[in-house]
């Protein structure tokens, strides 16, 4: 999960590999706040996979690439 100066830099870094998904920094920041803002709450509870998938959907990260798999339902993201 990296940042790049521009599309040109991303393409050079990929060096012919299949790209993953690219988003704006605004979307990333929105995602981070939606996913992690409860992380230090004293009454924290693990997110369900449905909860986390709904966060992705809400910030516009939809489609097969963003479908969560086993293990994304508990404590973590990435």
């Amino acid at each position, binding site marked *: *999960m*990296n*940042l*790049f*100066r*521009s*599309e040109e*830099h*991303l393409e*050079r*870094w990929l060096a012919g*590999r299949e*790209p*993953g*998904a*690219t*988003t*704006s*920094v*605004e*979307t*990333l*920041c929105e*995602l*981070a*706040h939606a*996913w*992690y*803002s409860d*992380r*230090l709450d*004293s009454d*924290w*509870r*693990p997110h369900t996979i449905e909860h986390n998938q709904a966060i*992705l959907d809400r910030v516009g990260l939809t489609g*097969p*690439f*963003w*479908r*969560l*798999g*086993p*293990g*994304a339902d*508990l*404590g*973590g*993201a*990435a």
Partner: protein
Amino acid sequence: MDEHDIRIRNFLYRRFVEARQTSRVDDVAREFELTHTAAAAALRRLHDAHALVLERDALEIRMLNPFSCVPSAWRVETGGRNWYSNCAWDSFAVCAALDSDGHIESSCADCGELLALDVRDRKPVQTDYLFHVLVPARQWWDDIVFT
């Protein structure tokens, strides 16, 4: 992850953020009056539940997402305190978890040039960079350190 494991998890986060100390097995054993074996098992359960990430070859905490417990290429300053995170996402997430503005520094993965971003009122000030995720979401936890 039962209620007792959640209390251990909360203790680990609280101690890391408030006291800036990464807990070890003995710290958990002492705090919760557990044997070393029981405390080690609790850390492994939390790792398996993705509530934290242990080092591959040692029973030591590497990540309390979004924080990195070890130095990394992602640095975040919030309110005069400095943190390491694990990736671009986690860098913004440090600001989110602490409910704070912040300053993020890392480098372009291609050219290595310094990238600096500020977060103000939950929004990025600089918006001309791109965020790229190579690994599909369903595979993130196959190798979280690589992800």
